[in-house]
């Protein structure tokens, strides 16, 4: 496969991540560096197949259960898809309640991913020579690390607010076409305030930042961030300071680059701008902007669902060519043999009709947050400034972007608690009818959307494209690699029997897939190592 085949070894990583299913990664290594990569999803459950011919509202029950990690995001898409198909009216309280549900789910996900999945790798023997290593082991060892225990345990608190709205997290279905099921009272709002406050005091400020949120929020540029780091020992030794400094020490700003093109659907429709939801008016109604960004040309562009294509050339489906999700049939093929030259994944290759493969996730959201927009829309230029000054994407920047969102999402949650008008309506009963709908959002880990077609009072077609589909997909018919496949190129491998570096790249996408690596000798095919990366 490579000109220098004599030196190339193949490393198979199986499994690689969780929720859409198990992801395996195969990499080719030449002189200690990854030169080629394939990602393949290894679990098929067939939610699109299950939903066909069911009640139009079946997606509200089924799709949150496609992913126990991003259930609020799936529910939000399922509800908005029906809203657009049925032409409902959604009261402002309901828009706020849906947004709050999503916000607290993502706020939960941030420390849970950071400590539970990401920082564990910093305790790997690979980094024993780092001056930060002893401290990393003390803080981040699974279950017993000082920060691990606090961070993982406190991550359960934000979703208590979800339970106040929907009864439980995960897997409530409280968002329905026409609004929400709940009608929160004053005590629900005051409890939610108290939970946020507890989370701020006991994690965000004390452990994560080492300063007040207000001080951190003053930071607008990379220079200001670096000045903040040096300003006080409390900043430098906070979990954020520790993450930044150790990541640089172990070189995580040098690889994991990827295609350098990004997508976000935008999310959080404004409570007064999307009460008559339509597919066409969505992008101009969301607080967090939709769009694409091309790092090479430093240019932004719009993003609408009509640009979406799924390419099944290398996927285990009997569908030839590229399709818009409305035109898909989801026909799995029985024989799912892994063939890197042919079909090798349950994931489809998602593409933008003009811009090809795009990376989804917090980094995409943060870059596009730096673009100009309408006055009511959120703007934040810090990560875009870092991207421009640090030579593009990397493991460090991708994970920083995720963590940087904590204060932004927290403030939006606070705003919602102020905006609820408790005596106004929460639900307007809609009239069911046939039609096509589209619901989109940003899950913690990136762009998510649902397409629904209702015909004769039942689901004729239901399609989901998740952030994991964008990021973990295989090559398209033209040979272009999927985003993680591309991001793995150039990854240095110090110990091919324990290639933790591949894990860093995959986990920086928070891909919701349990990953492990099978390492093969490129000549003999002998398996050298096998490990999990998420």
């Amino acid at each position, binding site marked *: 496969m490579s000109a220098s085949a004599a030196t190339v070894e193949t490393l198979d*990583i*199986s*499994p690689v991540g*969780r*929720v859409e299913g198990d992801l395996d990664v195969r990499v080719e290594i030449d002189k200690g560096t990854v030169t080629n990569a394939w990602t393949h999803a290894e*679990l*098929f*459950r*067939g*939610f699109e197949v*299950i939903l066909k*011919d*069911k*009640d139009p509202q*079946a997606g509200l*029950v*089924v799709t949150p*259960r*496609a*992913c*126990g*990690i991003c259930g609020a995001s799936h529910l939000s898409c399922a509800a908005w898809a029906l809203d657009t198909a049925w032409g409902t009216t959604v009261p402002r309280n309901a828009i706020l309640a849906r947004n709050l549900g999503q916000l607290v789910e993502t706020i939960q996900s941030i420390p849970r991913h950071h400590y*539970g*999945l990401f920082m564990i790798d910093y*305790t790997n023997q690979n980094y024993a020579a780092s001056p930060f290593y002893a401290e990393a082991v003390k803080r981040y060892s*699974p*279950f017993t690390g000082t920060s691990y*225990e606090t961070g*993982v*345990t406190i991550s359960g608190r934000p*979703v*208590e607010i979800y*339970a*106040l709205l*929907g*009864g*439980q*997290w*995960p897997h409530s279905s*409280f968002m329905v076409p026409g*609004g*929400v*099921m709940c*009608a929160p*009272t*004053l005590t629900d709002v005051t409890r939610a305030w108290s939970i946020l406050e507890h989370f701020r005091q006991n994690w965000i400020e004390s452990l994560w930042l080492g300063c007040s949120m207000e001080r951190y929020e003053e930071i607008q540029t990379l220079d200001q961030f670096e000045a903040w780091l040096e300003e006080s020992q409390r900043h430098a030794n906070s979990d954020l300071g520790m993450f930044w400094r150790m990541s640089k020490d172990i070189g995580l700003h040098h690889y994991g680059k990827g295609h350098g093109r990004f997508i976000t659907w935008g999310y959080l429709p404004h409570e007064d701008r999307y009460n008559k939801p339509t597919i066409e008016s969505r992008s101009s109604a969301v607080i967090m902007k939709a769009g694409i960004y091309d790092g090479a040309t430093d240019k932004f562009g719009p993003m609408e669902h009509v640009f979406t294509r799924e390419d099944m050339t290398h996927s285990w489906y009997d569908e030839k060519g590229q399709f818009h999700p409305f035109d898909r049939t989801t026909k799995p093929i*029985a024989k*799912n043999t892994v063939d890197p030259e042919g079909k090798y994944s349950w994931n489809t290759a998602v593409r933008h009709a003009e811009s090809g493969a795009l990376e989804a996730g917090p980094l995409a959201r943060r870059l596009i947050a730096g673009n100009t927009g309408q006055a009511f829309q959120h703007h934040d230029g810090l990560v875009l400034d870092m991207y421009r000054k640090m030579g593009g994407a990397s493991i460090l920047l991708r994970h920083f972007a995720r963590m940087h969102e904590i204060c932004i999402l927290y403030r939006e949650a606070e705003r919602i608690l102020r905006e609820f008008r408790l005596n106004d*309506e*929460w639900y307007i009963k809609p009239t069911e009818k046939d039609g096509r709908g589209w619901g989109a959002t940003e899950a913690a880990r990136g762009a998510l959307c649902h397409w629904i077609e209702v015909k004769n*009072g*039942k689901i004729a077609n239901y399609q989901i494209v998740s952030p994991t589909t964008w990021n973990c997909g295989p090559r398209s018919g033209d040979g272009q690699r999927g985003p993680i496949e591309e991001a793995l190129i150039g990854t240095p491998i110090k110990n091919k*029997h*324990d290639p*933790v570096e591949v894990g860093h790249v995959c986990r920086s996408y928070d891909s*919701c897939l349990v990953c*492990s690596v*099978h390492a093969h000798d490129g000549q003999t095919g002998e398996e050298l190592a*096998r*490990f999990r990366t998420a």
Partner: protein
Amino acid sequence: MANLLWLQGGACSGNTMSFLNAEEPSACDLVTDFGINILWHPSLGLELGDNVKAILEKCISGEIPLDIFVFEGTVINAPNGTGEWNRFCGRPMKDWVKDLSAASQFVVAIGDCATYGGIPAMAPNPSESQGLQFLKRAKGGSLGAGFKAKSGLPVINIPGCPAHPDWVTQIVVAVATGRAGDLTLDEFHRPKTFFSSFTQTGCTRNMHFAYKVSTTAFGQRKGCLFYDLGCRGPMTHSPCNRILWNRHSSKTRAGMPCLGCTEPEFPFFDLNPGTVFKTQTVMGVPKDMPTGVDKVGYIKLTAAAKGMAPAWAEEDIFVV
């Protein structure tokens, strides 16, 4: 000290996420205070790849004594009974499940998928999914009706979509502290201590149920969800209103109808057109009665209740 291994099949990780919300004990407390040695978990374990496979093989051979095997997600048999649509460490997951179950003192199925098949097993069940010892109401499942773990107990089923973290942690603590002998299971292998009472037990809408005052549409501040919105609280076994969710609430308290997710039939009616969030009725009488109530009794009772409902029951009660 007890060795615990947790694997996932056709799963969404929702039970893992729910488990991480646990308090008293928290997931970390289980390890540090109760001596639970988590051999491996797909989202939490430190070991990777070859080391994981080695752990599984040592559990099967007996070199590592396996005390508790927790399985989340369905056992996938597609295509054509081979299980190749869910491979793990290069082998169908269903084969790992069989070998590990035989080697374990206790086997715990967590969540609807692992207990009864859940959503993936809904018609047309494209992944040919089963629960560990049941498929919906039918006993058998992947391990067979006669399966018993080394302790002598069959698969302990902790259903729910997802299971409440306490239902899981309390069973694990019972095993770790030598109280497993007190566990009694019902006909669907659910621990009776959790699943004898009803979802309705402790529901804040019970007075409205008694007077047949209905929540006629979502977003209202009164009424019972059973009469119009399809709530299955009166015929579902769970402690959702005794042991609250995320410390604060439950679906029915928040205004969401119970979907019956701790019962083997979930999702009910296969979510066929017209069945979602709507009470199924014949001539105005619910098709599914509260457990143990007959149709004639129901009609008499509700007619009398409605006739004597006090005025306050028709007014908002969960007010700002």
